[in-house]
């Protein structure tokens, strides 16, 4: 009876030794492609047929991957099966925008590379923990650094400028009729919050891809629908006395910060080991200069914790644990393959600041153009005596493929050359048919290289 005990003890010991866990943060603004990325990543790991640039695969040391129970039982599970079914089913479609948080764990079994490790246990395990959440919530992060007055000024300023001025007209009209110094009425607060929320919803619907939507829970409340915490909105003017509407709103704003934002980030961001930041650069190009500027601002805000000089609160928020950060331009399958280098260069320019800051903090940074789910092929066609490289795929809402020349990102010049009003047109493509029958996993672009950068050193 003793010997099995010893054995299991040995097992437990070596599991402790060789079972490691890595938490990868999948960060991105709304519609950046987080959900699709996590789904494609997990599917590819499970099927292990399309990851030639992941060293553990190409050296033949990879054994298998399995879904395991997630570490935090109180967090909803990421609906992997549901999303995969949507993408690979008979009528392939994209997953719905994410409404709440979801977590998942994949365990990878592999043979360690070093002979020393192999003598302790021939098989090692890496638990990969992933979290998906609505992209809107990411922009709550910069609120932590702003007082109510600062945030109000900034938001009002933004709302008065095109393209948002029209969307915010009724809310701003209401603002003009009230006096922030007047005594606080719950009714007024509710009305203001409702109008402000309408404005945010309008921003979200706008076809110029407006990213800057704060606070995130107003549009994606998750489990806090109608909570009093969500009944405030920015007000004009400076701080007012006690009992005023201003004071009430400020109090709720602060409560939102402590109870919602801080909690969310402390629970899900502070323990990350690696980070991938997904950026829908092409979506911003599609939306034109206004959309691009908006995304740039939103990015700057959400990457602010990475900025040099703010490492104090970076440490508080992220620990100083994150030692690799990957910026990825998503949906690279919207452009022909020869344009990937330009896309990456554009991304480089977009995140240059943050990248330097992260390097300065001692973490490794990389940029890539990726597609979690490759929906198109690159093709050449002739147009007015000229060879054009295009993409071929089935646009969402149609059932016949089309050949699209989406416009080309210039190599060195500005992304929006003057005098051309719509230089890009990236149609959304739907997932290809019959993905479910491919035993190799979802087709992708460079997800394996992303994985190698993020996890390669764990899998040695």
């Amino acid at each position, binding site marked *: 009876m003793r010997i099995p005990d010893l054995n299991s003890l040995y097992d437990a010991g070596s599991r402790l030794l060789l079972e490691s866990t890595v938490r990868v943060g999948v960060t991105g603004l709304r519609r950046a492609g987080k959900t699709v990325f996590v789904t494609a990543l997990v599917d590819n790991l499970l099927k292990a047929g399309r990851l030639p640039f992941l060293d553990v695969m190409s050296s033949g040391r990879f054994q298998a991957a399995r879904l395991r129970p997630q570490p935090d039982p109180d967090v909803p599970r990421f609906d992997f099966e549901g999303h995969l079914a949507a993408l690979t089913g008979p009528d392939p479609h994209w997953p719905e925008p994410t409404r709440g948080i979801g977590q998942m764990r994949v365990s990878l079994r592999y043979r360690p590379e070093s002979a020393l490790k192999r003598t302790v246990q021939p098989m090692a395990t890496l638990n990969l923990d992933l979290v998906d959440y609505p992209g809107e919530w990411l922009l709550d992060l910069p609120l932590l650094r702003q007082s109510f007055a600062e945030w109000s000024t900034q938001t009002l300023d933004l709302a008065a400028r095109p393209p948002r001025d029209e969307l915010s007209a009724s809310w701003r009209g209401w603002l003009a009729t009230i006096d922030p110094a007047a005594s606080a009425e719950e009714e007024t607060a509710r009305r203001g919050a409702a109008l402000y929320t309408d404005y945010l919803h309008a921003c979200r619907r706008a076809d110029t891809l407006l990213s800057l939507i704060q606070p995130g829970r107003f549009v994606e409340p998750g489990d806090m629908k109608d909570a009093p915490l969500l009944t405030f909105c920015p007000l004009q003017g400076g701080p007012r006395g006690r009992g005023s509407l201003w004071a009430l709103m400020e109090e709720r704003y602060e409560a939102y910060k402590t109870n919602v934002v801080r909690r969310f980030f402390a629970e899900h961001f502070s323990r990350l080991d690696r980070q991938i930041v997904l950026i829908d650069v092409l979506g911003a190009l599609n939306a034109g200069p206004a959309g691009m500027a908006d995304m740039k601002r939103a990015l700057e805000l959400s990457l602010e914790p990475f900025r040099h000089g703010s490492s104090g609160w970076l440490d508080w928020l992220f620990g100083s644990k994150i030692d690799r950060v990957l910026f990825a331009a998503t949906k690279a399958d919207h452009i022909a*393959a020869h344009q990937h280098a330009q896309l990456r260069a554009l991304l480089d320019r977009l995140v240059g600041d943050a990248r330097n800051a992260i390097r300065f903090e001692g973490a490794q940074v990389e940029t890539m153009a990726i597609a979690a789910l490759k929906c198109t092929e690159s093709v*050449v066609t002739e147009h*007015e005596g*000229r*060879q054009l*490289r295009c993409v071929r795929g089935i646009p969402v809402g149609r059932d016949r493929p089309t050949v699209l*020349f989406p416009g080309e990102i210039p190599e060195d010049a500005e992304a929006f050359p003057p005098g051309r009003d719509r230089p*890009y047109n990236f149609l959304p493509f739907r997932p290809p048919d019959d993905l479910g029958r491919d035993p190799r996993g979802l087709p992708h672009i460079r997800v394996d290289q992303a994985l190698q950068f993020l996890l390669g050193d764990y899998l040695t």
Partner: protein
Amino acid sequence: MTERDTRNASKGWVPPMELDLDRAAPVPAEEETALLTGSGDPADLLPAPATPVRTTRRLGRWLFGALAALVLVALGFDTADLLARAFATSLALGVLVALLAATAGIAGVAMLVTELLSLRRLRRIEELRAEAGRLEVDAPGGRADRFAGSLVALYSDRRELAPALARVRDHVTDAHDEHEVVRLLDREVLSPLDRAAYQRVLRASRDTAVATALSPAALLDFAVVLWRNLKLVREIASLYGARPGYVGSLRLLRRMLANIAVAGVTESAHHVAVEALGGSLAAAISTRMGQGVINGLLTARVGLTAMHLCRPIAFGPDNRPSMNRIRKELLSVPKQVL
């Protein structure tokens, strides 16, 4: 048509638009089929590398050619003479001599052809390496598939590489750029070959070390070392697909002498001796042993240089073979022998 051509063909800007579905072809059509069938002949796929004209070498070639032709003519006359005389003596003898002459002629031609073929293979590998280098530096677009086609063609008759080649064919998509295709081929196809080659180098250098240490006469071990080195070079070259003939091996050896620095092998024999003998146990061992270790190290260098020269894609900084393991192995030889 490369990307650059596309841009230059017309400065006119093309607005985003949808185009005729039926006129579009996958990029780049003809090369992709080459990749898929593995039937690209590098001789016509790859542009010939520009060779600098060297007059002295050309003169040498003329001299050699003329001499060879003279010898051939003389041989022809002699043979004809011989035949005539043999037939004059007796018919049986004439037939015998004719048969011998024919056999010699056919064998000679066959040998010449195989030598030429092997030389071509060697040159093909060199061209591939140059092309891979060019692809690494600037990616002109659409050339990687050609490269892949040529490499696949080089190894298409190798049974043991079939799974790796199939994997590459499976993995390469239209979204990979030239850099990635080259890296993929490097990882999937060449790194198993590297491992095998390294094993052979290891074995050969142990062989020479032990043989030198045990051989009774200096002349004998010189012969053994020479023979083992030649064998090693041919083994490695065949492993990477060069299968050199005699002329090919000679050419390789000549290249190696010129290139011995490639493997990071800048030290002289003196340096090697210091390295081998300066170690803790080296002083204690006999000169024979020391000689063995030195010969082993030299063999290893020859082997590694051969690997560098025969590999269709040059080694990168993180996969170049290192002397370290060989060195360790060799320093343990004296203990084993004693």
